[in-house]
């Protein structure tokens, strides 16, 4: 239990998927101009990542490793994630329209998001157990959401300040993200 807690803390802060592992940067910059959007994306990622983390772990251990075809990992993971996103989208549309309306436009974005694929691959590379993989997927997703929301908070203000013209928009967004990555090194070595 304690180990899982440490794992979770480490995935959220120390090895933050965005700021320490460089995964999921396109949505990081794309969906952080408004707090509302950022929160929607954060929630969508938590939802999909937890499910993807579990399913790809099962696929890897019970299919790929069992049949000794690990070289199909990339192909099968991406298919699983794409199918999952499609399925989640259909399911939500039918059964929880409220949530679907909230997440809607962010779901398709997630398929081509390094963070989801990356975490699934990390789970395998680190040889996590199923429970560890579950915790790590959830915690990485929370870390993604946290970084995204923090970034959006700052960015909402930066957009309103008098940023020199050539630096506006993505450029200053990247500079801000860099400083946030610098700040996140504060958590290094804490577990």
């Amino acid at each position, binding site marked *: 239990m304690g180990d899982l807690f440490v794992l979770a803390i480490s995935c959220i802060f120390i090895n933050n998927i965005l700021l320490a592992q460089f995964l999921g940067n396109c949505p990081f910059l794309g969906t952080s101009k408004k707090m509302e959007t950022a929160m929607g994306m954060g929630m969508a990622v938590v939802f999909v990542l937890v499910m993807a983390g579990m399913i790809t772990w099962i696929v890897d251990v019970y299919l790929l490793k069992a049949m000794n075809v690990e070289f199909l990992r990339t192909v099968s993971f991406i298919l699983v994630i794409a199918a999952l996103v499609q399925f989640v989208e259909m399911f939500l549309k039918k059964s929880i329209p409220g949530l679907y309306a909230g997440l809607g436009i962010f779901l398709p974005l997630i398929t081509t998001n390094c963070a989801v694929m990356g975490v699934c691959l990390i789970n395998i590379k680190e040889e996590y157990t199923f429970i560890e993989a579950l915790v790590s997927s959830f915690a990485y997703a929370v870390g993604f959401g946290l970084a995204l929301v923090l970034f959006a908070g700052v960015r909402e*203000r930066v957009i*309103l*300040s*008098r940023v020199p013209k050539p630096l506006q928009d993505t450029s200053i967004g990247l500079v801000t993200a860099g400083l946030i990555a610098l700040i996140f090194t504060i958590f290094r070595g804490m577990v």
Partner: protein
Amino acid sequence: MIKRSFFALSKPRLTYDLLDTSLQSAEPLAVPGSLTLLLPEKIDSAKKALIGPGDAVKKGQKLKLYDDSTPYVLSPVAGTIKGFDSYSDDFGNKATYIMIKPNPSAKGDEQWAQTNLEQTLEFAVGHLGQIPGALPFSTLANPDYDIRTIVVTGADTDLLCDTCQFVCSAYADQMAAGARILKAMIRADRICITVPENLSVQVDLDGFNILRTSDTYPSNLPAMVMKDHLGKVLSPGTIPENEGVCFIRPEALVSLARIYETGHPVFDKVITLIDKGGKRYRVKATIGTPISKILSCFNVQINERDRVIIGGPMRGLATYTVHHPVVPDMDTIMVQDRDVIAELSDSACVNCGECIRICPANVPVNLLVRYLEANLYEEAADRFDLESCIECGLCSYVCRARIPLYQYIRLGKHELLTLRENA
């Protein structure tokens, strides 16, 4: 002007001035050789005006531009219309100056003689809309509001001003009479009057519901009086009238009483002039008198780049011309030397939080100003309480970056209205 104190751990406190008792009466000023009336409607060259240069006007005559227009002014004298000029205010609202040359020999008060002085609201709306003190009859008659409470601002709303206090003490009887007339016209349940809690002058206020207001600015502003004394907090974007409350000047009641007492219209307005040194002068001037006449009467010298402010230091309006006339709601004229004028800047908000500390309405001014600068008015209203602002001007007074915040906010509200009207 009040300075930031050396140790400023607590927020600055600005206090109202009490009645200047050295001025016992208001000096009457002779009718000048030319008067200017301000009509809040612009001239439409496509339409044929009812009045034009050369027309003779009678004292008390109702002057309108067109048949179908609502705004009107009353001519304070008998004389001749000399011409028109256009005038535009702060937000580009257009109005018209009507120049009149008085003719002392003309007998021109028939207009009023012909009219029966009815004590009804309909009559008042049609004929008393421009009496000194500017009683808002059209508001009182507006069927959208259900005005049950009248609040007389016996305590002046802006700093330095003491006209209202003066009117209350000098014309207490007439004020009470005016209140009875008003009560008869409308269905008001009660008439309140605000009085500074430390006012030493004894004023007879029988029949009024007395509200003692504190001496700290902005406790005399309508929204604060509503909250502190009437127990009604205005929701953002509403005005006292929405809650059935109407704020009027004491002088409006005095004028009402005088008109029904004498059967004649009155046009002399009590005005306090505050010169550069803070010395006050009290004058009774005919509506339409150019400000320059009042200034020269007291030998108040105006130099290049000085300011002439109509109203008090926190909420007044600087005028660009000393020819601007006395209007029915003009109580105070303040002259400010160019040397004491605080420099404003176009700096960005530095987030010092001074405005947050002082804002009586808890408006997050630091963020609000960012959204206003970016022209995001809807967002400013939804998330940053633009409409909660009671327009006291304190944020601008303390702003460390010297941003004209008060003006931004007024402009923001104006733009928001335009936006919503166009939507």
